């Protein structure tokens, strides 16, 4: 017997041959993984700041003040607060530290809420600036929007509940503005993936198939305004003049 591809004699294994059905079953199982060249899915992770915030929050909620204090004092959140001190309300870090030290979870949560609102506000302002830059191609402008929106929502989502407990009007306004921004950033009228609270789209927006960077910029300006007002309203000096 001649072996395949010119081999004079193929080696024989003197084993019992497989039944035809067994061979078919083996073939069926090998065919499917070959056909599906999947490349996996990506699940965004917390960054050092948001992870540290969650740790501090859970420690405070559990009444573990020493743990919360240690996490805050040596954590990424406080480092970020210091690095961004110029754009944050005065003494925000000191007030947050004092609240964590005394175990006042509500005040600590409020100060951290201001911090994350300020982070989201700065991102919205930067997005507006980049969308307004002259000479940027429409494709680039269309690509910028969703990336900033995702980053804004990632920070705002951490404190959305705290915002709604303290200032429900700002919370609702922020959700509406964000939902509108998402609509103008999307390339299709499919439901929003980032904001799970977004409801039905308006009839005019349901048929949208291309992003609208100009309207997106206006929506992001609104987001920045709402968050800016929230930060201002939450600073003690402004609240109690």
């Amino acid at each position, binding site marked *: 017997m001649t072996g*395949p591809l010119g*081999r004079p004699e193929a080696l*024989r*294994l003197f084993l019992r*041959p497989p039944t035809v059905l067994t061979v078919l079953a*083996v073939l069926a199982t090998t*065919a499917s993984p*070959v056909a599906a060249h999947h*490349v996996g899915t990506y699940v965004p992770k917390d960054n050092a700041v948001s992870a540290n915030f969650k740790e501090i929050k859970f420690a405070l909620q559990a009444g573990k003040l020493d743990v919360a204090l240690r996490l805050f004092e040596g954590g990424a959140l406080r480092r970020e607060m210091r690095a961004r001190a110029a754009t944050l309300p005065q003494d925000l870090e000191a007030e947050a530290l004092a609240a964590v030290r005394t175990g006042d979870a509500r005040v600590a949560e409020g100060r951290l809420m201001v911090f994350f609102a300020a982070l989201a506000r700065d991102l919205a302002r930067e997005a507006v600036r980049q969308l307004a830059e002259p000479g940027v191609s429409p494709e680039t402008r269309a690509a910028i929007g969703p990336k*900033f929106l995702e980053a804004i929502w990632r920070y705002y989502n951490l404190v959305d509940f705290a915002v709604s407990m303290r200032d429900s009007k700002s919370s609702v306004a922020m959700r509406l503005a964000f939902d509108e921004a998402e609509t103008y950033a999307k390339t299709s009228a499919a439901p929003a993936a980032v904001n799970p609270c977004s409801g039905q789209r308006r009839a005019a927006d349901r048929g949208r198939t291309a992003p609208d960077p100009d309207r997106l910029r206006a929506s992001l300006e609104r987001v920045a305004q709402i968050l800016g007002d929230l930060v201002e309203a939450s600073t003690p000096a402004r609240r109690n003049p």
Partner: protein
Amino acid sequence: MTADDAWRLPPWWVLLVAVLLIVCAELGGASMVRFKLELARWARDAMLARPAVHGLVGVRDVDERILDEALVKFDAGLRLFHLHAEGMGLVIIATTSVAATLGGRRAGRALIALLTAGGAGYPLGYLLWSALIPYRGIEEGKAIAEWSVWIPFGGATIVALWWLAGLVTLRMLRR
């Protein structure tokens, strides 16, 4: 037991290709562990040098997420190469043995060629995808790997497997 009922081995070069593929898979796996940091640093530097390719906007809170996704996919490509090369090495041995035993002379040759080329080439697509991510981005790299490797080599394997399935079915009906 008659001579016709015996298993036949595929040619030695096919076995060599399959074993080499498994060796590459193991080397790839070991290298991923040994040079994990170096690989991640190299990929990150290459991506930072091409902000336009990856849509980086110059804001850390936005860019870190983009870079993280690309690095996760870069690592996933290397892992998938490791897994597929291991698996396809065994698939080549198993399926070419069936083809050598039941395929007949002409069909057997063609089947063995398709199964070996397809099986050995397909995992390299994941390696190519990983290597392209820092230079061309996730999606463009994937499209290149798909059209240059996954579709032709994976397609060859799928066609060969269905062909083999048809041959086996024919044998079954003739019995």
